[in-house]
C-alpha cells in the first residue's frame, strides 16, 4: 500500500515536472517554428508546430533589411571591453582591499558596498548628462562607459582574495617578489573560478543590456543586438514571421554560450548569487 502511494507520488512529480517543461519550452518552440514558416502559416489556427511549408525566406528578408552583422559586432566589442575592464579593475581593487593596510581602506570599502544600493536607473539621467558633455551619444564608448567598473565585482574579488592565506603573500614578499608579480602569479591563479564567474556574468549582462543602449544609441553605428532587434520590430511591426527569425538569430549566441558553459554558469550563479 505504502509502496503504491510512493510510486504514485513519484509519478505525479515526474508529470508535474514534464508539464512545467512544456510551459518553459513552448515559447521557444513557437519562435523557432515560426521563424521557418511563411506569414500565412504563422497566423494559422490551430498552430502547426512543425512547419508544413518550411522556408528560409524569413532569414533572407531579415538579413537583407537588418544589419545583424553590425549589431553582433557592436555587441561583441562592447561586451568584451566591458568585461575586460570590470575583471581588471575588480581584481586589482579587490586585492588592495583584501591584502593591504592603508589609510582610508575601510572607508572606501564601505563606500563601495553602499553604492550597491544605488540602482543604475537612479544614475542614468546624470550619466546621460555626462555622455552629452563628452559627446558620447551614439558611439560604442557611450554604450560602454557606465559599465566599466562594477562595485559588486570589487566586492566579490575582495571576498575571494580574503580566503587566500596571508602567509602565501608574505612568504613571496620575503623572497623579494614585487607586488605586481605577487598579484599576477600568486593571487590571480588562486581566484580563477571567481574571475571566470565574474567574466561570464559581466559579459552576459552587457550582452543583454537594453535600457541604456536604448537611451544612448540612435543609429546602426552603435546599436547592439537587443536595441537593434527592437528597432527592427518597430520598422516591420506586423511581420511576425520576420520578427521570429530576427528573435531566433538574436537569441542564438547566448543559448550556444549557455550550452557550452552550462556547468560554469549554473555553479557561478550559486557561487555568487549573480544574475545571468
Amino acid at each position, binding site marked *: 500500500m505504502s509502496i503504491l502511494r510512493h510510486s504514485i507520488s513519484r509519478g505525479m512529480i515526474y508529470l508535474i*515536472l514534464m508539464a512545467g*517543461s512544456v*510551459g*518553459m*519550452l513552448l*515559447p*521557444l518552440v513557437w*519562435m523557432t517554428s515560426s521563424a521557418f514558416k511563411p506569414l500565412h502559416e504563422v497566423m494559422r*489556427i*490551430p*498552430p502547426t508546430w512543425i512547419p508544413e511549408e518550411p522556408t528560409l525566406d524569413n532569414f533572407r528578408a531579415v538579413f537583407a533589411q537588418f544589419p545583424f552583422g553590425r549589431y553582433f559586432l557592436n555587441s561583441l566589442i562592447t561586451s568584451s571591453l566591458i568585461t575586460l575592464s570590470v575583471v581588471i*579593475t575588480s581584481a*586589482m*581593487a579587490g*586585492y*588592495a582591499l583584501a591584502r*593591504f*593596510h*592603508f589609510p582610508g581602506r575601510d572607508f*572606501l570599502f564601505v*563606500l563601495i558596498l553602499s*553604492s550597491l*544600493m*544605488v*540602482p543604475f*536607473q537612479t*544614475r*542614468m*539621467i*546624470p*550619466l546621460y548628462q*555626462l555622455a*552629452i558633455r563628452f559627446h558620447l551619444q551614439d558611439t560604442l564608448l557611450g554604450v560602454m562607459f*557606465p559599465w*566599466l*567598473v562594477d562595485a559588486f565585482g*570589487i*566586492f566579490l574579488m575582495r*571576498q575571494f582574495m580574503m580566503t587566500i592565506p596571508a602567509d602565501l603573500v608574505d612568504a613571496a614578499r620575503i623572497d623579494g617578489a614585487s*607586488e605586481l608579480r605577487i598579484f599576477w602569479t600568486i593571487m590571480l591563479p588562486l581566484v580563477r573560478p571567481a574571475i571566470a564567474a565574474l567574466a561570464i556574468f559581466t559579459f552576459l549582462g552587457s550582452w*543583454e543590456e*537594453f*535600457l541604456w543602449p536604448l*537611451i544612448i544609441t540612435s543609429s546602426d553605428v552603435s546599436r547592439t*543586438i*537587443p*536595441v537593434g*532587434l*527592437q528597432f527592427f520590430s518597430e520598422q516591420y*511591426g*506586423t511581420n511576425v514571421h520576420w*520578427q521570429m527569425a530576427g*528573435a531566433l538569430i538574436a537569441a542564438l549566441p*547566448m*543559448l550556444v554560450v549557455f550550452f557550452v558553459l552550462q556547468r560554469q554558469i549554473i555553479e557561478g550563479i*550559486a557561487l*555568487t*548569487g549573480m*544574475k*545571468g
Partner: protein
Amino acid sequence: MSSVLSQEAYGRMKTLHLNRRVRMWLWAYGFMAPSLILFVLIVLYPSIEALRLSLYRWSLFGSKEFVGLLNYQRMLRDPLFWQSIRVTLIWTIGVVPCVMVLGLATALALNQPWLMGRGVFRTIYFVPVMTSIVASAFVWRWLFEPTFGVVNWILRQIGVADPPGWLASTTWALPALMIAGIWKQVGYAMVLFLAGLQTIPRELKEAAEIDGASPWRTFWHVTLPLLNPTVVFVAVILVINAFRVFSIPYVMTSGGFTYLTPGGPLHSTRVFVLHIYDLAWKQFDFGYGAANAIVLLLMIMTVTLIQLRILQRPFEY
C-alpha cells in the same frame, strides 16, 4: 657607546620600516586607482548629481532652474506617478511570490535523490533565463495575440468561450506581462534554491523521516527553517528586480499590430522605470525624472535595509 649604536640602528630600522609601510600604501593606492577613478566618474558622481538634479527644473537643452522640493510636491499630485507606483507594486506582489513558489517547488523536486533526468530538467527550466530578453518579449507578445495567438487558442480548447484581449485590454495587459516575467525568472530562483538545499545535511531530513515525520512536516519544520537565508536572499533579489523591471513591459507593449505606446494601453502597464524613462527621454523633463529616480532609490534602499535587519549579517554568499 654601545647604547648609542643600538639607538642609531633602531632609528635606521624604524625609518626602513616606515619606508616600507609608505611603499605598501603607494602600492595599495596604485591597485585601487583604476577602479577609484572610474567609480567616482560613473557611480559616485552620478548618484550625488541625481539628488542635486531632482531639485531643478531642466529640459536638457535650456538652463537649469532651482525649484527646491517642487518636483517632489508635484509627484504627490501626479496621477501618473501613483499609477506607475501601483503598477510596480502589483507586478512585485504578483511576480515575486509566484517565482519563489515555482522556483522552490522545482528545486525541491530536482533535489530528490531518486529523480532521473535531473540535469535535463534543470537545463530546460533554466533556458528561459538564458534567452535574450527582447526576443522573449517578442515571442510572448505574439503568443498573447487575441485572435491567432497560442495562449487564447489553448484557452478556447479548454472551454473558455471568450478569452481576454490581453495586450489590447487595460485589465489583462499587465497580467500578460507578469506571466512573461515569471517564465523568465523561475529557473534563476530554482538554481539559487538548489544551491541552498545542497547545504542542508541529508542526515537531518533522514532523521526526521525515521522519527515518522511526513514529507510535508519535514519540509515545514526542517528544510524551510534551514533554507531561511536563501529564501530571504532570493526574495530580496526578486523584489529589487521587480522594482527595476523595464525591458519586458517596454518591448511587449510597443510595436506589433496595434502600434501600442510603451506602458499602454492607457498607462495600465506603466512600470516605474518606464515612467522615469518617459519623463526624461520622451517629455524632456529631466529634473522631474531625477526626482522620480530618487524615489526608486529610496524603495530599493528600504528593501535592502530590511534584508540586513532580517539576516543581521551584511552579506550572505
